[in-house]
């Protein structure tokens, strides 16, 4: 297990290194350069700016500086907001995105398990058909549509009651988080419901379930103690990709709901071509996602004793 963990961490580090390199290469392939923006500037100012950002150095030297800075945890200074470092931006805005993401994951996981169990319990009956119909909708409708419709619904609700029941956008209190995290988690929830349903149907007729029945356990105890416990494991495996989906989904949801999270910042930086911010946030997001997936894999190995991840990795 330790060997496996170390191996995964090492490959993770290599992946992060490549992410950093590709990001650097991609940003240097962009036609034009970061300072030649809309404003015309004198050669002196230009030279000064180039010195400030180290753009007067050869590319290989820039690459070396870039890598050493990343190892030190320094992502540089923003081009469009010249007194703000990328580290400041991450420190200020990542907690907002993380809160939103964790809430969305929780909603998705609990909703997925509960609704998935319901569909399996009421298999081929009305609740099953209804939930599976909603699931197909949840998978097929883009998150920005849910975001817009949710916002519209809240506006109408507030208008109808004449009170501010839920805020339409912004950030601060729990009521601000409710709608965005629900919208953000919806797609993942739909996916998890599907997974949960087939997973429960799979364990439905296994030997230990029959044994539990023969022992005379109540249906509820069989369901909670035997079926659900074994069926819920696959949900954990997809949490890694789910975290990735929710993180990138945050780009849209944060933009629509005007939430000051890192995702909205990333989208802004991309639209304004703020090179250091794009590079810094890509490396940050990339390493975050890579290590999240690794963490989920390791946790999965710890939880389910039947699966030896170490053996699986040898194949």
């Amino acid at each position, binding site marked *: 297990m330790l060997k496996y963990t170390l191996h995964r961490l090492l490959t993770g580090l290599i992946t992060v290194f490549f992410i950093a390199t590709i990001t650097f290469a*991609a940003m240097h392939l962009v036609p034009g350069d970061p300072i030649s923006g809309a404003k015309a500037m004198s050669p002196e100012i230009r030279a000064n700016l180039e010195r400030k950002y180290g753009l007067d150095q050869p590319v290989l030297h820039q690459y070396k500086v870039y890598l050493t800075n990343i190892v030190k945890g320094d992502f540089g200074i923003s081009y469009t907001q010249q007194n703000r470092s990328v580290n400041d931006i991450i420190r200020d805005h990542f907690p907002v995105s993380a809160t939103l993401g964790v809430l969305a994951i929780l909603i998705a996981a609990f909703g997925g398990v509960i609704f998935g169990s319901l569909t399996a319990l009421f298999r081929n009956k009305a609740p099953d058909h209804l939930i599976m119909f909603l699931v197909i909708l949840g998978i097929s409708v883009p998150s920005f549509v849910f975001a817009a419709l949710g916002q519209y619904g809240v506006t109408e609700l507030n208008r109808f009651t004449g009170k501010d029941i839920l805020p339409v956008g912004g950030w601060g209190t729990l009521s601000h988080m409710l709608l965005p995290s629900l919208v953000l988690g919806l797609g993942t929830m739909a996916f998890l419901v599907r997974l949960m349903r*087939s997973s429960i149907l799979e364990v439905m007729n296994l030997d230990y379930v029959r044994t539990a029945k023969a022992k005379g356990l109540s249906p509820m105890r069989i369901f909670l103690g035997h079926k659900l416990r074994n069926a819920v494991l696959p949900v954990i495996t997809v949490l890694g990709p789910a975290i990735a989906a929710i993180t990138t989904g945050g780009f849209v949801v944060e933009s629509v709901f005007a939430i000051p999270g890192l995702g909205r910042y990333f989208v802004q930086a991309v639209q304004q071509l703020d090179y250091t911010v794009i590079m810094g946030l890509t490396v940050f997001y990339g390493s975050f996602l890579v290590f999240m997936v690794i963490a989920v894999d390791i946790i999965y190995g710890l939880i389910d004793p039947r699966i030896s991840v170490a053996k699986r990795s040898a194949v």
Partner: protein
Amino acid sequence: MSQTFSGDSGVAEAVKSSDLHPGTGAAFNADDFEPAVRINRFQGLSRPSLSYWSDAWMRPKKNRKATVSLAMVVFLALFTLVGPFLWRIDPSAQDMARISEGPTFAKTAVVIDEAASWTAPELSGIPAAPTASAENLLAPATLEADGVPSSQAVRLKWAPVTGASAYAVYRSETKPSGKVGTSELGVPIGEVDAGNKVGYEDTFNLERSEYFYSIVPKNGEEASKFTTLRVVLPSTIALSAAQALKSDIKVGETLHLSAHPFGTDYLGRDLLSRLMSGARVSLFIGFFAPLVMIFLGIVIGGAAGYTGGRTDNLLMAFADFVLALPFLLFMILFKIAFGVGAGESGIFPMLVAMVILSWPSSARLVRGQILQLRESEFVMASKLLGARPIYLLFRHLLPNTMGVILVSLTFAIPSAIFTEAFLSFIGMGVAPPTPSWGSMCNDGIQTFLTHPHEFLFPAIFISITVLSFNLLGDGLRDALDPRMRSTS
């Protein structure tokens, strides 16, 4: 050997025929040496044999959801390919007189003269700047339209409020409920800066058929009381604009305007024709990215699976590495790196980025299938009979992975459409003049609260397309891949 050809029944028949001559001993007749008649009475096939593909074709036909979604896909293809020939409105033609209009079919407009200049009535005998605190101000006693309101100008007249030094004019598209105070009166479109000026002319973007105007008296601050007037605008068109459409038209005549079944967008462009040309972009990416991706996957996965050993390890390690890259993040990064010049749509860079990042999943799939099949009996038999590797690969291995490949292709299409919509929505997709469903959603969401159709129509099209491909994929999976048949 003969048993395999004639079968059990044939043998049984042969034994019986010798029993017919028990006493003849060594005497053989010539017909004893006739070959036994082969009677395949029990062997006969009661119905035509069902091949893999004809079985696959029958299954979705039984599956109602899959049939409906197949019909939807056909409809979408027709909409995209044939639609522009039937609905010949230029998707980039702007009609500034009809901005953000809801769906219209047979709209007519009365031609009116150009609006003459108008000045707000000024009352004498009332001080222009009196003093009264804002909370004591009353609402204007009357509020009416001066003359016939038209889509060029709405002229308002109201009774003066004693103590007011100014009036704020609000315009709303919905009726204020009166519950929330002045916060829901809509847009503050203007202000009259004297207490004795009691008129206002609104000429700003009058595009809807109904407005609610509210007058709030002011003195320093706004009062909490106001008067609201509902103004219905008849559909009118200015003479100069009408003459551009039909040269011999005169004031007072009725003009038939072109229909916009899905309305117009914020630049007055026909939404239906934009949806059609947007479909071309969205579906083009949705089809071609998966196709190229699957092709690459077959080549790389096939090579890795068939050769095995070091090549396999190397290729799969590379695939794993690409899979570990965060997909959307790198889509955005590649999009920036490719750079889109002026006048380019940016479709090609998006395709390339999508293929570069998504081939590993299909390569892994193909490799896994080929690894499995390589060890199966029929492949070994074929090898034993001297089949060459190329023949093996194209005759046995790849055709048998086709089902799985087709299923993953169907599921790759909606996810490619989703990716395109997502990127275009955050402004990182197709460059502006070219419409795509995602970028139309991005344009539409800005005015979602006032003109929902601009957002809803492209959103509905994205959803329906993704939905049909998902259902079709489910149906195909049931049909083509016996192991993955869903448990319902």
